[in-house]
């Protein structure tokens, strides 16, 4: 038995055992309740959207890997996350063909061109959504109220639009809390917001479930809790100050926190590890920038919602944050910084 050939490798010879695919898989688990609630509140139309984006992302990932003669990387679950997230940011009545296009773009433009998992400098799902928003601005801002009768028996008229054709718009459309505020100065009660009794993108309506998913991931150390905390705190404080200055013109901070895609963005999008800074301080700065941009765009900008743009812009800044904020290496002077 002492004549067996030994294996040699570099230390350490033991690993903690938590794999990248485990992390990704857990993110999917954390997203599932949100997705299930989406289907519950918006019916099969929402399910169609989610299935379309997820399938598009996974298939695109697979075929692009084949195309570049690499091993398929769909088994790391990251494409599934992208697809699910993208679906959750789209309106429930979004035409399926557009959702599919969005998924393809998210993976191809948001991930593949940078070299795949680990190199995407932007959150792929948000890249997909940004392109969709720019390409089909009407369809992506046509909302559909939650808890409609018959949502499980029929899809909305726009869901199965013929590919490349304009969707037909239902008579029943709703306004999201943010656009209701922006254009009509109507403030939706915070309880409705938290419980998801509102109009909005499939996955952004139930803030409580999103928070629960986030807490699960943070507890299992699969997500950097500092990011959502920094974002939400920034939004709360900034909008709180504004609200104190002028209660009429500026919405209450809780409304800002729970409306629109902020929760989903802060918990699941901004925390994309690859596109966010790596150091604790850097992460807080990153969160602050997102919060600031969200408040600025929502309150002074032309658009009712700015979470997507805020995160994309912060993604673009995060290499700089990583450059500026390096951990102080043990034994180096406190003032000297890595250049």
């Amino acid at each position, binding site marked *: 038995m002492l004549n067996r050939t030994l294996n040699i490798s570099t230390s350490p010879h*033991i690993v903690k055992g938590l794999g990248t695919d485990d992390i990704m898989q857990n993110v999917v688990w954390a997203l599932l309740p949100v997705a299930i609630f989406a289907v519950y509140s918006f019916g099969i139309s929402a399910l169609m959207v989610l299935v379309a984006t997820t399938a598009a992302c996974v298939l695109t990932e697979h075929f692009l890997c084949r195309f570049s003669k690499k091993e398929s990387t769909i088994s790391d679950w990251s494409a599934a996350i992208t697809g699910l997230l993208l679906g959750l940011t789209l309106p429930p009545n979004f035409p399926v063909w557009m959702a599919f296009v969005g998924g393809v773009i998210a993976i191809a433009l948001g991930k593949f061109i940078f070299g795949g998992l680990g190199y995407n400098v932007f959150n792929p799902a948000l890249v997909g959504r940004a392109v969709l928003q720019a390409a089909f601005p009407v369809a992506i801002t046509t909302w559909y109220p939650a808890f409609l009768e018959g949502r499980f028996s029929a899809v909305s008229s726009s869901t199965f639009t013929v590919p490349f054709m304009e969707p037909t718009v239902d008579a029943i459309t709703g306004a999201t809390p943010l656009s209701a505020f922006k254009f009509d100065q109507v403030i939706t009660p915070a309880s409705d917001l938290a419980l998801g009794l509102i109009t909005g993108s499939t996955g952004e309506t139930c803030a409580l479930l999103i928070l629960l998913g986030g807490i699960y991931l943070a507890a299992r150390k699969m997500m950097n809790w500092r990011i959502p905390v920094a974002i939400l705190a920034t939004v709360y404080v900034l909008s709180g100050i504004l609200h104190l200055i002028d209660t009429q013109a500026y919405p209450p901070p809780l409304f800002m926190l729970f409306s629109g895609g902020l929760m989903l963005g802060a918990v699941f999008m901004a925390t994309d590890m690859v596109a966010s800074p790596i150091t604790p301080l850097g992460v807080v700065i990153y969160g602050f920038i997102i919060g600031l941009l969200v408040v600025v765009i929502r309150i002074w900008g032309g658009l009712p919602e700015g979470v997507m743009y805020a995160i994309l812009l912060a993604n673009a800044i995060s290499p700089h944050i990583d450059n500026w904020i390096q951990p102080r290496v*043990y034994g180096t002077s406190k003032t000297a910084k890595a250049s």
Partner: protein
Amino acid sequence: MGLFNFRKSTFKHGVHPPEHKEDTNGLPIRQFPFAPLIILPMSQHIGAPSQIVVREGQEVARGQLLAKAGGYVSVPLHAPISGTIRKIANVPTISGKMSVGIYLEAFPASSQEVMEGTPIDVETATAGEILQGIQDAGIVGLGGAAFPTHVKLKVPEGKTCDVLMINGIECEPYLTTDHRVMLEQAEDIFTGIKYLLKATGAERAIIGIEANKQDAADHLENSIPAGAPVSVQVVPVKYPQGSEKMLITSLLGREVPSGGLPIDVNVVVVNVATTAEIGRLLPHGRGIQERVVTITGPGVKKKGNYLIPIGTPLRYVLDQVGVDEQISEVYMGGPMMGVAVSNLDISIVKGTSGIVVFAEKDVKRPEKVYPCIKCGACVDACPISLNPSKLGILAKFEAYDEMAEAFHLMDCFECGSCSYVCPSHIPLVQYFRLSKSIVRKRNASKQSS
């Protein structure tokens, strides 16, 4: 002194690998049988190899000088057993390089009596004499680094040492050598501390022990000789607490400057087993012949802490304790920083603190390496606050100069925390070791040209 004992301060970051110390920490140190043939490389320590002073065919007694120190940063080597010099030739070493060495054939065990040398009296000897004595005894850091102890103890001109730190942390999983030494050789340890205090001129000594060895801490605390300026401090369990720099930060809150030594913050750190060895050898003027080695790991049948003569071949050791049929990996040292053995013909050397054996079923090496997802686990693990994620990416793209200049590559001491936690299973430590060797090579060629 004891006033501050409640302060369980520690260093930043670090990891908590499973300890697995319960297998052996209750087993007393036992004498290991003498191997019929032992192999003694001349480079058992960092620094110049020892120079052989015997010839082939010569008979030597146990404790007799076989090789003298090859310079200041070098130590002599003594015969671990009585026997005949069979051959002087190349012998394999753990580093993979061949080194000059001695093949020593043992006499029957009955004749193994130890030669006495010139004792060094701690009361009368000067610091210089003690340092000389330590070198003559062939003592190197027994914690694993194998750096000649007398060099480490020498306080350079213009610097002072106020604290002598005895390192009883033993943060590597599986290993219990120091634990047993502290339990069984308290007297030697305190004798050793006496020599060390004198040699360094330090005012006090602190013995640092991790909280998982509370029994050892209590035992030492109770055995402190009256009036000795020694205290025992217990620190929380965290890897790599046993690293000198981390220990200094934990116990004193001082930070050793980048590229510097503990003496730069007026501290000298000595491993507890080394201290015990000094306490045992110097009063008799003997040279080091054997050391305590933990033989453990899931692949070992008779696990334990053994007193093994230096030079005993690994093959013989494993043969004696019995190993799993499916033996797959053998590490010298612990699993975090130990070196994988490629060849069982190498022998136990002064720096060998443990042998960990894994059978095939015990090795959980992930098959797939994912790209870095910048999760930051390594950043949170690195005890010296490097950015292993960035360093890893730079290494992958061979930007070695940038790693060294902007990201403090050379400060990395390869503790393995980053690789241990990496969810993508990127061989970070290997990248860094490779990068460091290339940077060193480049710097050397830059200097020469």
